[in-house]
């Protein structure tokens, strides 16, 4: 029994964090909200690092590792509010053999992130999963609160059948749960980012002659955020392990991870906004980039109630 990432996994996570700090600063996230074409530099850097190959089998030049190696890295993409569809690609598509293209998917819900930027569309059609080339589908762009989500609704063009990847419900279910898992990890990363940003801000900001962070109400808001993050993290880690080991509790565990990660991002986001005050309520400050991503991901890949209901079902009630 040992709970936590091993040294290699931690080293990979640390490296990803360093890389994203350089390759995906808030300015990149901000730009993704308005750019015609998504800047692929951070994506290429992650690919270069091998992130897209983690779940790829060794015999097709992948790293042949499992979710316990990938999920800590995905958490870092949450911390950076990376706009690219890393979850849909590295966690959902790659293990299905789609390779390392940039993949958008509707498996987590009808709103497809980065749909117009994708090399491949992975669509949930008639119970199975099929891939489509961009010119085989119609896009219906959707204005999102978080513009860096670059959302669209997508449907195959009349007559386009795509390429069948699988129609095995078990495989589709696993792919779905990998998406849930990755989204949960990103939410924890976002919560960390918002908490850290806020701790720095309230420490430096003074009102009433003292540091804002010395007020008990501010301390308690941020302690609550820390608390929620502290307990969501292990839930995500366990869900990664359950997925990697094909545990029978996988569905329950990824739903629990998503639910607690949603709570953590919600508590941290509220605390961050409230403790920043009006400064955080402007688009000139970076906080909103993280807040809006957290709001979006909280509802993507299954809303909070959906996951609680899945856990209840697993409890036999």
């Amino acid at each position, binding site marked *: 029994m040992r709970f936590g990432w091993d040294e290699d996994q931690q080293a990979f996570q640390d490296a990803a964090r360093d890389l994203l700090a350089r390759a995906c600063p808030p300015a990149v996230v901000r730009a993704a909200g308005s750019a015609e074409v998504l800047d692929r530099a951070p994506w290429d850097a992650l690919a270069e690092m091998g992130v897209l190959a983690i779940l790829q089998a060794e015999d097709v030049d992948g790293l042949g590792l499992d979710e316990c190696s990938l999920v800590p890295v995905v958490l870092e993409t949450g911390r950076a509010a990376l706009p690219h569809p890393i979850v849909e690609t590295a966690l959902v598509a790659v293990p299905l053999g789609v390779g390392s293209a940039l993949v958008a998917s509707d498996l987590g*819900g*009808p*709103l497809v992130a980065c749909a117009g930027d994708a090399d491949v569309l992975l669509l949930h059609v008639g119970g199975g999963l099929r891939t489509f080339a961009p010119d085989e589908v119609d896009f219906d762009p*959707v*204005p*999102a*609160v*978080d513009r860096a*989500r670059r*959302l669209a609704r997508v449907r195959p063009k009349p007559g386009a059948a795509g390429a069948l990847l699988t129609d095995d419900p078990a495989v589709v279910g696993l792919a779905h749960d990998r998406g849930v898992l990755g989204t949960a990890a990103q939410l924890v990363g976002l919560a960390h980012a918002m908490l850290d940003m806020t701790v720095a801000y309230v420490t430096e900001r*003074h*009102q*009433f002659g003292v540091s804002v962070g010395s*007020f008990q*109400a*501010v301390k308690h808001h941020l302690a609550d955020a820390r608390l929620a993050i502290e307990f969501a993290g292990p839930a995500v880690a366990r869900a990664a392990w359950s997925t990697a080991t094909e545990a029978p509790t996988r569905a329950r565990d990824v739903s629990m991870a998503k639910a607690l990660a949603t709570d953590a991002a919600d508590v941290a986001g509220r605390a961050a*906004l*409230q403790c920043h*005050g*009006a*400064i*955080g*309520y*402007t*688009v*000139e400050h970076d906080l*909103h980039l993280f*807040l809006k991503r957290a*709001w*979006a991901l909280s*509802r*993507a890949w299954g*809303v*909070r*109630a959906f996951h609680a209901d899945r856990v209840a079902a697993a409890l036999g009630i």
Partner: protein
Amino acid sequence: MDLTWSTEEEAFRAEARSWLEANVPRDLPSGDTAEGFALHREWERTLFADRWAVVSWAEEHGGRAASLWDWLLFEEEYYRAGGPQRVTQNGIFLLAPSIYEFGTPEQRDGILPRMAAADDLWCQGWSEPNAGSDLASVASKARRVDGGWVLDGQKTWTTRGAFCTHLFGLFRTDPESARHKGLTYLLVPLDTPGVTVRGFGRLDGDEGFAEVFFEDAFLADEAVPGGVVLGEVGGGWGVAMATAGSERGLTLRSPGRFLVTAERVAGLYGRRDFTDAALRRRVADAWMKAEAYQLQTLRTVTRLAGGDKAGAEASLMKLWWSELDVELHELALDIIGADAEVEGPWSKGWQFALSGPIYAGTNEIQRNIAAERLLGLPRK
């Protein structure tokens, strides 16, 4: 206890309702953008033309001398008819009560009608980069010179500042003073030379905020009718607190607004093709809170009509409506489900609601006020 409306009040309500049904514009864009603001200004002028802009004001200022009860009825009908936000609100709901309380007859007669007519559009100049929650640390200065004041400093987070014509705010007129003392409440036309305004975006994407810079700006004593000082020189803090009371309490957030929102949330739930006991109960809870806010307002108006003054209870009002507004919108988004991240009136309203616990004094400060002034707990 008598919760019935008189025949006259019902007649007033009916008149308001039929006028609103005929006149309320549909689908105005947000008033917190430049083009939206212009359209809203037209709407405010329509209201004023038929004397619906400020029903509780004196007739000579553009009102109907209506009672607070009638004002409540009007507000309820206004929101029920889908009336849009009032871009004049910082003038008519915040500044105006302070002008009635502290202004000279010349100020009242000179300022109020133009405000009601949306000829002059007022924004609030409280916050500064280093004076947010801590309003008493205001550093913008006004120096007395012959025939006026010279202003220096900066205000920020000024709602709709980029579209308004006038600003009311606190300035330090005694350079030796600290904290609450030595501040003066000034009325400043934004076209005063030396004043520059830069709009910037709010969380919800609208250009709703502005920074206002004062650089050696000469504000002539008669730049507004009756003079630019509201109340006494050096007595600005007391006037500002009266204005803040209006912002927190009765006038800015009429219960009609939340009741109508609660009913819309119930409608949103009712139109779904699923039942969910948890969501249904949350709808009931949110509606009860909106209704309780209405009842509390009736109690407050009864008290004011009996001669009482609004007190620190305004802090409780502010806590209630601001947290209710978040709850209502969050609930709506939970009913909408996965599509909630799409831009739309509910997601936009939610983002706006999140500012409620911050502006007009953060809710942390309101809870301090409630504990200290209503419960008598020690300040330190």
